């Protein structure tokens, strides 16, 4: 049953890929609609198969094709895989639904068909990665995902911004693949097989190298600081539904990879967990601090993805630490927290990216300083974005809170179980930073929602904006419902899949909230005055309120900018020339305050410059002259003969 469904999913996705490619020159709506319908159908099938498997819990193993003896295209769908397949399914279905309308408002005529095809290919690659039963096919599909996502990012390739983002993304994603391949080769050298089988040896240097390589590879893809820089470039450059797919699902594939290797292959040491925890906490805090400063709405969401991936890695790190200490209950609790947060982040981040896409297409700007007042003009979109914002700010009773609560609880409970004092202090430090993260994300999304939707419009485009078509509301609407259900019924959902977690009953809390609100309303209705007047409120004596006098997004985050100024590292430039020698009469001058891109200027650029230098040295050997190349071949052959003659 599950095997047939899975093959059907692959076939439908393939059809969705190939159909728009063969009709690439046909700029018709139906081509794209059919292709995206394939995505929706495949997602529904995928969702039902993963739910079936998630509930039954029986791993399904099957294999399709064996081209060479060492390598076979074989798949395994166990609970972990079907959980991530579920994430892919829900997000893809909603994105595709949204895309059917969104794509018609995009530029690019028949090129849009290719966009649909590539989206299908991208989803297919992700599905196949998750189901892969051996590391080699894992890597192959990993590359397919990298390539297809690169094509998606560079859709608007004529714009300079997109070109830069595309190249940046390509380099980073290939680095990621390189490290993953290195890890897989190291594992192969150790075990002699490509299967995901548990290592018998506890730890050798080779295994440590394999882990580190895989960790770096997955971190690059997931956007862990300091490998995060591609996210804030690639997300604003690509179309919003693509950003949603990449942030909602692709980052989770990296999480899946890490969890899969940690659970099925390695027996982790304690320090691995500390490493993952440290990387996760650093990403979470720095990610949200950078997000606060951002006023491009999609770059802000990209940084917030970095933060959330950091939270997920924090959970994974905790789980590894607890496993190494043999605290299995706590390990399960924190791993559940990490996985549940992956699901929740996929829901609310996709929701936020899609609604942000609607806002951007309605106002034609990504700068939140030029928005405002959209709550009146786009009421449904604003309500949906609001649900996403409440979820991501980890406020009860929505889903972001439920998963962060699991991680908080494993932190808290660890304090009275873990025996090692130093480790305990480390856990407390990480806990403090983790709390800072979720408080800052609330501040960040108050700023985002306030600047985008509340008060007066700050640009003519924003004043003229109107609500998007219905298809662009249904997709995000489903996700918003998922955010509410996953949060309110968290305890019940865990009970259904068979985990007893010590979560508070959020359903009861939600009922209490509703009850209290109802009671308050009733008491007021009978005791208080019911008069309501809509009138200009006191604005310090001004005749009418001006949008320019409002609190802007920049102004909102200014206090936190000042407090965290040591992290932002701004450079102030001030050049002045004067008419006289004593510098009294001012002639002209420029002044600027620039945000220093710390990682780019101190990490990425030096590495890039060094590799350029190496490349230049190597380039000297390549003079383009045939004779020289013949000489190289000749020298190599001679060297080989001598080597074989002497040593073999």
């Amino acid at each position: 049953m599950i095997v047939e469904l899975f093959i059907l999913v692959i076939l439908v996705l393939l059809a969705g890929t190939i159909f728009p490619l063969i009709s690439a020159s046909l700029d018709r709506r139906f081509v794209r609609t059919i292709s995206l319908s394939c995505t929706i159908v495949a997602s529904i099938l995928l969702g039902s198969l993963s739910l079936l498997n998630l509930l039954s819990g029986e791993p399904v193993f099957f294999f399709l094709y064996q081209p060479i003896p060492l390598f076979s295209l074989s798949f395994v769908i166990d609970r972990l895989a079907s959980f991530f397949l579920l994430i892919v399914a829900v997000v893809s279905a909603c994105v595709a639904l949204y895309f059917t309308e969104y794509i018609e408002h995009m530029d690019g005529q028949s090129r849009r068909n290719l966009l649909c095809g590539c989206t299908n290919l991208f989803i297919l690659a992700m599905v196949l990665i998750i189901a892969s039963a051996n590391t080699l096919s894992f890597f192959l599909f990993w590359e397919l995902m990298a390539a297809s996502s690169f094509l998606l990012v560079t859709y608007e390739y004529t714009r300079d911004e997109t070109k830069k983002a595309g190249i940046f993304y390509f380099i980073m994603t290939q680095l990621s693949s390189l490290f993953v391949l290195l890890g897989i080769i190291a594992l192969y050298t150790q075990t002699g097989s490509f299967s995901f089988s548990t290592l018998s040896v506890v730890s050798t240097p080779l295994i440590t190298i394999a882990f580190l390589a895989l960790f770096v590879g997955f971190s690059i893809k997931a956007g862990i600081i300091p490998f995060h820089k591609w996210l804030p470039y690639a997300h604003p450059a690509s179309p919003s539904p693509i950003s949603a797919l990449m942030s909602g699902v692709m980052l989770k594939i990296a999480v899946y990879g890490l969890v899969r290797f940690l659970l099925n292959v390695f027996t982790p040491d304690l320090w691995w967990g500390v490493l993952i925890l440290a990387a996760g906490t650093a990403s979470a805090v720095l990610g949200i601090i950078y997000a606060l400063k951002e006023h491009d709405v999609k770059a802000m969401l990209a940084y917030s993805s970095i933060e959330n991936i950091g939270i997920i890695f924090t959970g994974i790190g905790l789980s590894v630490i607890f496993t190494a200490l043999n605290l299995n209950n706590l390990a399960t609790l924190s791993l559940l927290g990490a996985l549940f947060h992956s699901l929740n982040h996929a829901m609310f981040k996709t929701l936020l990216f899609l609604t942000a896409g609607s806002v951007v297409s309605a106002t034609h700007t990504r700068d939140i300083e030029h928005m405002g007042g959209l709550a009146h003009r786009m009421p449904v979109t604003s309500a949906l974005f609001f649900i996403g914002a409440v979820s991501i700010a980890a406020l009860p009773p929505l889903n972001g809170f439920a998963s962060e609560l699991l991680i908080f609880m494993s932190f808290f409970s660890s304090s009275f179980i873990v025996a090692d004092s130093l480790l305990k202090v480390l856990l407390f430090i990480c806990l403090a930073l983790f709390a800072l993260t979720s408080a800052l994300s609330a501040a960040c999304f108050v700023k985002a929602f306030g600047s985008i939707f509340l008060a007066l419009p700050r640009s003519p485009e924003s004043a003229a904006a109107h609500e998007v078509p219905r298809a662009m509301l249904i997709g995000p609407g489903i996700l918003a419902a998922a955010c509410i259900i996953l949060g309110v019924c968290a305890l019940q959902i865990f009970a259904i899949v068979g985990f007893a977690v010590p979560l508070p009953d959020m359903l009861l809390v939600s009922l209490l909230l509703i009850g209290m609100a109802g009671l308050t309303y009733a008491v007021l209705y009978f005791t208080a005055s019911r008069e309501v007047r809509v009138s200009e409120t006191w604005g310090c004596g001004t005749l009418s309120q001006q949008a320019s006098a409002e609190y802007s997004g920049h102004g909102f985050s200014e206090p936190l900018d000042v407090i965290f100024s040591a992290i932002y590292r701004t450079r102030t430039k001030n050049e002045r020339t004067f008419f006289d020698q004593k510098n009294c009469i001012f002639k002209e001058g420029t002044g600027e305050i620039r945000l220093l891109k710390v990682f780019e200027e101190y990490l990425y650029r030096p590495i890039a410059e060094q590799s350029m230098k190496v490349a230049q040295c190597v380039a000297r050997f390549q003079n383009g002259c045939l004779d020289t190349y013949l000489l190289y071949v000749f020298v190599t052959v001679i060297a080989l003969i001598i080597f074989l003659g002497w040593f073999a």
Partner: protein
Amino acid sequence: MNLDFVLYLVINTLVVIAISPLFVSLIKKVKARAQGRRGPSIFQTYFTLIKLLKKEVIYSPNSSRIMRVTPLVTMAAILVAALFVPLVFVPEPVGGIGNIILFLYLLALARFFMALAGLDAGSSFGGMGSSREMSISSIIEPTTIIVFAALAFVFKTLNIFDMFTITATAGQPATSTLILIAISLFIIIIVETSRIPVDNPETHLELTMIHEGMILEQSGRNLALMELSSAVKMTVLMALLINLIVPFGLTTTLTLAGILIAMVFFVVKGSILAGIIGLFESSMAKKRFFQLPSLFAMAFFFSTLIIIIAVFS
């Protein structure tokens, strides 16, 4: 959900709503006396609330639904949070009510809505209040969570009900830990309820206001809800401190006499704490906004000290 718990819900909510305006007035009274004034009656806050209920509500034409739902959501969130801290009677916890992290995040939910309402009308005062409130609440958060983690660590439970049961029946932890917890919780009360030196609840001046700036656009019954909810929030945080440090009188069985006695004890203890807060405020000057992080660093130091003492002793 048993009958005891349902009764607890009713009793706790009624008590907290009835008492909290009194504490607000008491603090004002103490501050007035410290400044050599007679000050308003200790029932003044009740009169103000009743007056506000009779007034009409005015909404700015720019404001959206956020402005209209915020007072209700804030009040509901704070009242549910109040259920997490038993004032006079500690029942058996049901369904995770009393979870200390959820308590903290219910307060955050109220703050989130209040901050958005501050931005909603587009007035620069409201925006300023929201911005400052979110900044302050963000940087105090690590301290708060460390204090709460320390509580969880000291009492070996995550549930406030269980903590109170332990202090009320089984006895308290060592005095040194208790003093440090008291200091840290006191600082958290000052920060969370917007008092001097962090904020000045008395003024509507641009330079000092944070919380008041945020609710400047509210009027009539909505303002009454906002005022009452911040009073309830203060009472709840005070109750957390009182019932952990001086729990005598707190009852764990449901009897009418027990509850009445506990109520009298609570009012007396709460009034003393309100007096201390008033004196503390009178002895302090409002700090400059950007000096607050150093104050919070001090609070963080105290809370970390609890943990270091507890871990290494």
